[in-house]
């Protein structure tokens, strides 16, 4: 057992209101620079939708992530052979049009145009060429299902859905969607690190943050291809790749990352997970259907005596072990089994987990014949020619789970590599918490029914209350349990302060040698 600690995250999708505050907080701190304008280290997508960059999930196009061949995992579009052969021209590199061409407006024209008959307008100009452009795409062009025929209908996750199920989704485009905020997952088996020919990308041992050393990056641009989440971006101006740094300067100071701190829906949780680093490759190489389970298995129980001992032997600070025991991420992911990784089938072992959204689920769509109704309406009335009924009654306990508005298969293709039972299990728990809390607060649910639901979901009332508390009422310190960085020890190691104490005194790094 080789215990390491990882700063991991949980995003509770039911709580995301799609306000993009997180994206703006991140942009204002890190990517408001030339060459980085198009980068959104944090972005929020509407699902169903094609996302950013367009169709990033479709690895037939982008060739990102790992694939299993002959029992071993290989990078799909990069790696030692492919990377070095394709170094002069990377055939799988997304280009700026796959994201969008960044733009601004000539605001000064509004003020400085000469007097005339027409209102002055602020024309859009490209931030790459500086010339006026026709804006064809923006970072959230498909927000809230805008432009569905071009975007939502081309969502790569629809691939496995039958035409009938897709039809239900198209029906849904009028009423159901959810938001998917994404940042770099700071994976345990990062494809970006493995793909970098110059070795510029590395995972930090202490907290697992994945970083690109800007001094070593040589613009071989393989990480952009390799990251299946497209969270490594190429800065076209500096000729260096950049990615989310999990606001490590903030984390080291005990602050929450900017996106998480600013999150309006308070959907974000951050905390330590202890894991067994000796099992990473093995975990990433299992069959697709076992991937989620094996990824959860690699995470260790921070209360287990053996784990604690092994962690201490590995030099993990007591404060970090303590943080792991109070980690909200551990609770959501392991203790309650509510959160799942996004697209586990990419095999990078992402350390950002999502509580799958229940909201678009709790109602059904039934095909009905509305002709009779329509005929009764006044001839002048506006008529909708749809034969679908949006039904929110919950007569049966789990009835709606089987005929939900969002095909299970769609959510399963996002969060469980297609395993529908796994999603169902999470939804049952989420629903049980709601029914239980309704019994407590409103009181119109009978005790028997609530108990039956809880039993069926495999949790008890106490757990349901705990889930409810951490979901709906958490304080800042409960959402973010950030381990101390112990920089004081790091500085001692880097700068030999002990040695210089008896020589030049603290603060002076170079040895004093007279005359040199």
């Amino acid at each position, binding site marked *: 057992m080789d215990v390491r600690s990882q700063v991991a995250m949980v995003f509770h999708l039911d709580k995301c209101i799609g306000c993009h505050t997180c994206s703006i907080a991140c942009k204002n701190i890190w990517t408001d620079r030339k060459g980085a304008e198009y980068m959104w280290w944090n972005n929020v997508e509407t699902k169903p939708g094609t996302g950013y960059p367009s169709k990033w999930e479709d690895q037939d196009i982008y060739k990102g992530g790992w694939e299993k061949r002959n029992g071993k995992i290989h990078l799909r579009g990069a790696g*030692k052979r492919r990377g070095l052969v394709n*170094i002069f021209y990377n055939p799988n590199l997304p280009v700026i049009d796959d994201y969008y061409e960044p733009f601004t407006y000539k605001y000064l024209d509004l003020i400085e145009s000469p007097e005339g008959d027409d209102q002055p307008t602020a024309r859009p100009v490209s931030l790459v060429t500086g010339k006026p452009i026709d804006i064809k795409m923006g970072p959230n062009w498909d927000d809230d299902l805008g432009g569905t025929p071009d975007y939502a209908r081309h969502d790569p996750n629809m691939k496995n859905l039958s035409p009938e199920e897709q039809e239900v989704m198209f029906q849904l485009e009028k009423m159901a969607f959810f938001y998917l905020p994404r940042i770099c997952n700071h994976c345990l088996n*990062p494809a970006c690190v493995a793909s970098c020919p110059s070795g510029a990308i*590395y995972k930090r*041992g202490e907290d697992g943050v994945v970083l690109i050393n800007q001094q070593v990056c040589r613009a071989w641009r393989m990480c952009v291809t390799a990251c299946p989440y497209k969270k490594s971006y190429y800065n076209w101006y500096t000729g260096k790749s950049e990615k989310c740094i999990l606001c490590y300067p903030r984390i080291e100071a005990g602050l929450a990352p900017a996106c998480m701190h600013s999150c309006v829906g308070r959907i974000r949780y951050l905390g330590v997970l202890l894991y067994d680093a000796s099992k990473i490759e093995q975990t990433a190489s299992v069959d697709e259907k076992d991937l989620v389970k094996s990824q959860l298995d690699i995470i260790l129980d921070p209360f287990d005596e053996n784990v604690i001992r092994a962690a201490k032997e590995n030099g993990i600070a007591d404060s970090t072990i303590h943080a792991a025991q109070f980690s909200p991420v551990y609770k959501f992911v392991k203790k309650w089994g509510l959160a799942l990784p996004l697209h586990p089938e990419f095999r990078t072992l992402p350390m950002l987990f999502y509580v799958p959204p229940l909201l678009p689920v709790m109602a059904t769509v039934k095909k009905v014949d509305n002709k009779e109704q329509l005929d009764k309406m006044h001839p002048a009335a506006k008529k909708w020619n749809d034969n679908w009924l949006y039904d929110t009654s919950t007569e049966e306990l789990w009835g709606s789970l089987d005929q939900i508005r969002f095909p299970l298969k769609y959510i399963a293709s996002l969060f469980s590599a297609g395993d529908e039972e796994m999603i169902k299990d999470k939804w049952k728990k989420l629903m049980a918490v709601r029914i239980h809390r309704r019994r407590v607060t409103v009181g119109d649910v009978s005790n028997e029914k609530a108990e039956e639901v809880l039993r069926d979901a495999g949790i008890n009332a106490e757990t349901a209350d705990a889930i409810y508390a951490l979901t709906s009422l958490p304080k800042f310190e409960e959402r973010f349990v950030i381990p101390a960085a112990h920089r004081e020890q*790091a500085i001692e190691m880097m700068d030999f302060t002990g*040695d210089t104490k008896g020589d030049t005194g603290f603060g002076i790094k170079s040895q004093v040698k007279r005359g040199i």
Partner: protein
Amino acid sequence: MNYLDNFILIALPYLALAVFLIGSIYRYTNRKFQFSSLSSEFLEGRRLFYGSVPFHWGVLFVFCGHLLAFSIPKAILAWNSQPVRLMILEITGFIFGISMLVGLINLVIRRYTTPRLKSVTNYMDLAVYVLLILQTFVGLWIAYNFRWGSSWFSTILTPYLYSIFRLQPDTTAVVLLPWTVKLHIATAFTIIALIPFSRLVHMLVYPLNYLWRPYQQVMWNWNRKKVRSSQTPWSLQRPKNT
């Protein structure tokens, strides 16, 4: 004419090598952030293929050819002793040279006809293009007109280059070569001198190390295991992180 010969064949090489060495080392140690291939594929990802790929494979082969003639002249001469083998060598070399030239021309056209690329193009790019095209063109001209280059390179140029590196420049044989060859030599050393000031530095950092490093890289700010133990002394090896 003699002054010019001396400048091109003696002064320029030493100047260029000095500038190259000092400049590259300075840039690598002090301006590391600027070491980059400055890829422009992100802004234009289709036509680059027809430029970068033929150019780079061409330049790599041609460069290795020159290197071989420089480092193992006897073997080259032995290989060339049979006309068939000589032809094979010369023709493949010529084809790769053509590939280089075609690639270069495609790169130039691409760069100056794509509006987006204007924002990442500077005068140094132009200088590099002009020099490389000149060098490739003159090289092909020489290969075509003064046959067979692979043989006389090994007998005339190799000793001359050796004499440069031995710090006893001997130009008696080279001065008799046609002016095109002298131009080729002059441009070659100019390009070498330009390396530290242009994107050409990228060829110095070819990531060979990738072949034998493990895929995953974990880096520690400091070694906590040792910090915890009271038996380790203060001074440990500094972690290397650049």
